């Protein structure tokens, strides 16, 4: 009998919530997005930024400041996690190495992941992907070896250094654009030829900064949670 009422109340609540959600969504047509803002952006973005990937154009060209805020939030989350966990690293440090196959595969995988991450970051303005996705893959590249052999050191200092430089670079690019125009983070360098790697002005640079920052941040974050603090 214990907890019976709680479950019943939960289910009742969730049923009501579900019905309300249905009530909202059944009035929402599917496949007919009105695109009131989207239409304008889709029409203007290639001309404004030179990026083929319109999502990238929105993220960096139109909502660059917002993305800076997002990166900051990620940084704050990582820093907070580090503070919460700081010093208490006895947890998994003495874990033994993974098996031989896993161990060597992890090191074999490293360059490939690195290349893939770099590709995704650098082609963010042309193909699907960008700084965040590529950054996650870069983080995985650096973290997989740590996973394979937890005893191996993870260099938090280097990671923090990269992260700091990348963040500073993002803001620097934004400030540089202040020189030429009157707005922070306005794309510069010219739009270039559509479809080429060096096009879309400063957007690839911004994405590079984001990629490095996100990659180092996520790798550091996971290393902290896993308890690999040995090389700090």
């Amino acid at each position: 009998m214990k907890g019976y009422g709680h479950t019943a109340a939960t289910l009742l609540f969730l049923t009501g919530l579900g019905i309300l959600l249905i009530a909202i969504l059944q009035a929402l047509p599917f496949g007919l997005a009105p695109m009131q803002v989207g239409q304008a952006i889709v029409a203007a973005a290639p001309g404004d930024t030179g990026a083929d990937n319109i999502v990238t154009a929105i993220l960096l060209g139109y909502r660059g400041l917002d993305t800076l805020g997002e990166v900051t939030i990620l940084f704050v989350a990582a820093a907070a996690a580090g503070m919460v966990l700081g010093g208490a690293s006895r947890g998994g440090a003495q874990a033994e190495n993974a098996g031989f196959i896993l161990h060597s595969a992890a090191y074999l995988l490293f360059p490939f992941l690195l290349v893939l991450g770099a590709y995704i970051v650098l082609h963010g303005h042309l193909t699907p992907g960008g700084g965040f996705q590529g950054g996650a893959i870069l983080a995985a590249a650096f973290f997989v070896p740590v996973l394979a052999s937890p005893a191996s050191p993870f260099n938090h200092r280097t990671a923090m250094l990269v992260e700091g430089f990348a963040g500073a670079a993002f803001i620097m690019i934004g400030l540089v654009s202040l020189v030429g125009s009157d707005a922070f983070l306005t794309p510069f360098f010219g739009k270039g030829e559509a479809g080429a790697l060096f096009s879309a002005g400063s957007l690839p640079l911004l994405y590079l900064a984001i990629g490095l920052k996100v990659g180092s941040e996520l790798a550091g974050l996971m290393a902290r949670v896993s308890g690999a603090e040995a090389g700090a």
Partner: protein
Amino acid sequence: MSTGAVLYAGAIGLFLIGCYAMVAERHLIRNILGLVLVESGVNLLLVAVGFRENAAAPILKAGQSAGMMVDPLPQALVLTAIVIGFGVLALALALVVRVHQAYGTLDTREVARLMRVEREASGPGAAGPRAGAKS
């Protein structure tokens, strides 16, 4: 059953299952799993709302007119949401690890009981969870 109904049902389903995990479960990690499910549901909903029939992905190819694309705006938002969701997850998990270090358990009621015991032991006015953290 149209595509939209299926997708909306999927989004609502994820949302509700996540809510259930957050409300009914007593294990902190399960609550966090529920949070991730809720996030996924909302992301799916946003992307589904931005979908257009017979439209292309918002990446320009040669000879494509801009009107035939799905709405890129929700996609940009969802991209942001996914990344920030990961940050939230990491912070939450760090806190979970900390709670485990402090109380040795992740059962919410057990933790609440231990906190109450602590508060009563340290008397009124004393800082609660910090007191016995390093036991």
